[in-house]
């Protein structure tokens, strides 16, 4: 092990030691002696990253934490005691875990099979199947439930057609809708992991006489164990905090996330909402922490001498996987397809003739919320690229004593459910004494909220790409006399831009479809598209709600296509845009 390059993957202990050395006076003084404008600026960069994170993530969380302890009798645990003391609360916790664990289990198995089929078999139409798996990402999460009700409701297409009489509402409804909702996220992680394989391992396994099952258990599964963990936790987090699906299809089956919505929207009980929000924060934060601790950056387990996998022809295998993948893809297409179909019918499910009348939205702002969403998406893309890119650059390149805390701060939003963040924003920014009160009620705050809601994912995309750009470029540039700004401008940014386009698209997409955080922040002039869908659905304009969803999907798909064509035109076919 070369001592000189030890710095590449600092262990926490090493990091801590380095922190100590950095703050020891002697070293500090020596560093300051060489201080010029650049060194000063460089020292300020971590602050530039940390400040907005503190302001837009920690500050609202502190407010919500404070609210949870605020009782009519003053500060205390009164809210916690009154919430947690009830059997209803225990029931909600049980329900949340029942739904989340079942969904996680099912999703992991299905997504693994699907990803395996795409990456490790020779089924035909792989690209199409890959695209089908990702369809749910393009739409507001509500769409899964919307489609399921249209298909499998008591008066849904299936029951009407076959004269059957079953009900989708309740536990299984939530589970199925949730599986559909999170499937693409798990699929993406598995797909990326299964795409990396060392052919030599598989050849040796075959030469040693291992059968395919044994090879799978001994080679494939172990090499993807971190992906299993990672997607397990992503799915867990998403399902645990999603309220759109349980709201539409859950019937009377309540979970913690819907309870927050209830407490705040229904009963105007911010203290209780804050308590349950904090409670919701706990398992999610634990899940995120556990995932980081278990995987600890060991995702890349493959040596650089690895040879790409050559998939052997094997008809029975391909037939088996084909027969598994086809129905899965069909379900995904059917659920979204029926929503699109319903948007073009005269009156679902009674008059099925073609009609465009639902695209003439008779809501107060008409189609305007869609434009708002697009503005917000564009702003979020801009701010998100700067925030995530700068965060990745500072934590990967600047190497200050703040690296550890800063990294934590950058990924902390992954542990904050959207609705908790939104609630925190209202409490924190809608206060005349707040220095940022002027932000409240602006499209900008919605964009900022979206950026920090999805900050962790955007940051990780940028950070992974930053890791792949060798640190020696920075050193080479410094040795040649380049300031770090010049390095950034001439070297790092030109190498990073395709990834940054990906980050921008990511933030745009999420801004278009997200509901949970922004629902607390909209004002008359800042209504957004996903909320319009919810309101239309609430009003009972099912067809119009479907039509609005279709508009959102169309915008998302359109932007994706433009970005894809742009990247392809510059020869960056390998940059994936859907995360």
């Amino acid at each position, binding site marked *: 092990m070369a001592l000189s390059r030890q710095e590449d993957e600092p262990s926490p202990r090493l990091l801590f030691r380095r922190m100590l050395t950095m703050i020891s006076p002697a070293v500090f003084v020596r560093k300051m002696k*060489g201080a*010029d404008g650049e060194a000063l600026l460089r020292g300020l960069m971590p602050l530039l990253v940390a400040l907005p994170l503190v302001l837009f993530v920690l500050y609202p969380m502190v407010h919500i934490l404070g609210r949870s302890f605020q009782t009519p009798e003053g500060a205390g645990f009164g809210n916690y005691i009154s919430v947690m003391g009830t059997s209803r609360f225990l029931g909600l916790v049980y329900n949340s875990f029942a739904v989340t664990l079942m969904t996680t289990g099912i999703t992991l198995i299905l997504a693994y099979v699907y990803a395996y089929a795409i990456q490790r078999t020779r089924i035909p139409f792989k690209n199409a199947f890959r695209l089908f798996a990702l369809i749910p990402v393009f739409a507001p999460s509500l769409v899964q439930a919307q489609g399921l009700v249209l298909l499998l409701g008591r008066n849904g297409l299936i029951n009407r057609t076959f004269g059957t009489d079953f009900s989708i509402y309740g536990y299984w409804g939530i589970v199925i809708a949730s599986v559909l909702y999170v499937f693409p996220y798990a699929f993406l992680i598995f797909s990326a992991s299964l795409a990396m394989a060392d052919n030599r391992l598989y050849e040796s396994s075959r030469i040693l006489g291992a059968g395919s099952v044994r090879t799978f258990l001994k080679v494939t599964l172990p090499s993807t164990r971190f992906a299993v963990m990672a997607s397990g936790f992503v799915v867990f987090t998403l399902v645990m905090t999603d309220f759109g699906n349980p709201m539409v299809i859950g019937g009377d089956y309540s979970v913690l996330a819907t309870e927050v919505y209830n407490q705040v929207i229904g009963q105007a009980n911010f203290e209780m909402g804050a308590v349950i929000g904090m409670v919701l924060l706990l398992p999610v934060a634990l899940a995120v922490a556990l995932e980081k601790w278990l995987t600890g950056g060991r995702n890349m387990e493959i040596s650089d001498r690895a040879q790409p996998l050559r998939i052997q022809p094997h008809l029975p295998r391909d037939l088996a996987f084909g027969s598994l993948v086809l129905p899965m893809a069909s379900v995904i297409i059917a659920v979204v397809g029926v929503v699109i179909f319903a948007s073009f019918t005269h009156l679902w499910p009674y008059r099925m003739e073609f009609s465009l009348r639902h695209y003439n939205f008779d809501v107060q702002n008409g189609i305007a919320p869609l434009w708002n969403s697009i503005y917000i998406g564009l702003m979020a893309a801009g701010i998100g690229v700067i925030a995530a890119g700068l965060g990745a650059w500072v934590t990967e390149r600047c190497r200050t004593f703040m690296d550890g805390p800063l990294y934590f701060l950058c990924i902390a939003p992954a542990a904050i459910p959207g609705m908790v963040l939104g609630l925190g924003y209202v409490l924190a920014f809608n206060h005349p004494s707040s220095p940022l009160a002027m932000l409240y009620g602006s499209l900008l705050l919605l964009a900022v909220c979206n950026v920090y809601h999805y900050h962790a994912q955007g940051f990780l995309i940028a950070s992974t790409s930053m890791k792949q750009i060798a640190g020696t470029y920075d050193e080479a540039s410094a040795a040649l006399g380049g300031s770090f700004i010049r390095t950034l401008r001439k070297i790092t940014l030109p190498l990073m831009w395709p990834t940054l386009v990906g980050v921008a698209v990511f933030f745009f997409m999420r801004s278009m479809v997200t509901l949970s955080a922004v629902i607390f922040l909209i004002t008359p002039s800042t209504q957004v598209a996903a909320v319009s869908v919810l309101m239309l659905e609430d009003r009972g304009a099912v067809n119009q709600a479907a039509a609005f969803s279709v508009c959102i999907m169309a915008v998302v798909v359109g932007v994706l296509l433009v970005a894809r064509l742009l990247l392809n035109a510059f020869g960056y076919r390998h940059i994936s845009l859907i995360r």
Partner: protein
Amino acid sequence: MSLEIRKISKSFGGVKALDDVSLSVETGEMICFLGPSGCGKTTLLRIIAGLEYPDGGSMYLDGRDLSSLPARKRNFGVVFQSYSLFPNLSAAANVAYGLECRRWPGEKIRKRVEEMLALVHLGDHARKLPHQLSGGQQQRVALARALAPEPSLLLLDEPLSALDAQVREELQEEIRRVQQHLKITTIMVTHDQEEALSMADRVMVMKDGTVMQTGPPMDIYKRPENSFVARFIGKMNVLPAQKEIPFQSHVAAEGSRPRIIGIRPEDVQIACCGREEGTFSGVVDQVVRLGNLTRVSLRVESTGGREKDLLILSELQGMGEGLEVGASLPLCIQPENVRVLEWH
């Protein structure tokens, strides 16, 4: 430009990478840091370049204190093991980079780039991107890039270790030629002893963050001071100092009894010398014929009952006809060819 390094030390998380390293480099000299991986040679180079800060010690360039100067202001040329050519810039743009940083006028930059690319015989490849060039070509561009801004010092961090043997040899000559042509003070890090011996004016051998020995290559080869240097550079029989093998003590300290000695295999002669002194017999254990060279291991029985048999390696010119395993042969060693070594 001369460089003076005084008592530099550096540790990474409790592991000492450099321990009180001192060195002075003369103007126009080429010095090699040589040692196994992990010996701290690259760390030292990076500290000199300003890419790493030392925990203690100081550095002076022509008497000027360097310790507070950031890398980009030191005006040193650095060539990295991994080339580190900016992948988004053409060869010419890479070479021009340092000049642009120094705000050279455009015309001057163009001329200098042309000149530097010609120097490394890559005038025709100016417009190519790094990935369109071979490894050797990339490293030539890197060399040109490092030299373009007229650096006061050239630092080479294992510049050739990623290259094929043939390209490596070519580039060794090339670097040496350019270095001597420009008379630029150069420090090169390598773990390849042949490379160090053939290229450097002086070699500094390092182990575990400390300097083992510094000197001209042939000096180090001929007169290693300790067993580590002896074995790391070339082959050497390192034996306990026994009475059977005579040596001329070059150790100044009177009365200190040397414990180990070293003899180069080519200095172990078989059945040739007329003198009685220093002659003893060994049994042939193994013969390896390398064409122009024959390597023989011989077993020398110990005289005292308690010590084990010694294995001595000898190298003969030619095919070594008539050598057979098991044959007992007389050996002789000239006392002046025996080095007293420190144990390391």
